[in-house]
């Protein structure tokens, strides 16, 4: 079957440090991966996505890395800020036209 999971359910980082949130997926047929951020009391918000034909994609302070060999996805946040405190979800689609399957989430806490 399909599953998307995270290595660490919680992560605490010092303000200013870099954060790395990891995600494992089991469906090697997945073609499209997305990271969402969910702040307390709000809905998930799109951060960045990556297709399976890429291994790295950068956004503003965020980088997503994809390792298809070991079916691993990570989100790197540079210079983590208090506003980055949230639950982060990785999600996958087998194709762009498939439903989104969410992983269980990692809670990121930023220590001032």
């Amino acid at each position, binding site marked *: 079957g399909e599953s998307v999971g995270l290595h660490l359910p919680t992560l605490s980082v010092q303000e200013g440090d870099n954060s790395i949130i990891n995600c494992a997926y089991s469906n090697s047929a997945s073609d499209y991966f*997305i990271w969402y951020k*969910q702040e307390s*009391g*709000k*809905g*998930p*918000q*799109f951060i960045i*996505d990556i297709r399976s034909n890429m291994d790295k994609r950068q956004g503003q302070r965020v980088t997503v890395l994809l390792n298809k060999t070991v079916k691993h996805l990570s989100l790197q946040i540079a210079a983590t800020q208090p506003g980055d405190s949230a*639950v982060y*979800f990785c999600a996958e689609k087998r194709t*762009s*036209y498939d*439903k*989104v399957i*969410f992983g*269980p*989430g990692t809670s990121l806490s930023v220590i001032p």
Partner: protein
Amino acid sequence: DTAVSQTPKYLVTQMGNDKSIKCEQNLGHDTMYWYKQDSKKFLKIMFSYNNKELIINETVPNRFSPKSPDKAHLNLHINSLELGDSAVYFCASSQRWSDTQYFGPGTRLTVL
């Protein structure tokens, strides 16, 4: 100027009651979704409509019935509420089925 809005934000009700949650998007998107987030933050798709037509209906009890009066609205009606229905329900929309999804703020349903 809210993109995806849901009402109510909180809903507390007794077992056996029937309730509805409303969702509206002002983004001009063609596709709308309902997700359920349980107490462990796990997010799962329930339904998806594209141009008012049902395209995804996950294994959701038939007590849950979505209704899309027009492209901008997707309401969720729940009959005979059960304790296990307690969760946060998120509405989302995307331009097309394959595009980035934008989530509403969620409706926290508590069944007593």
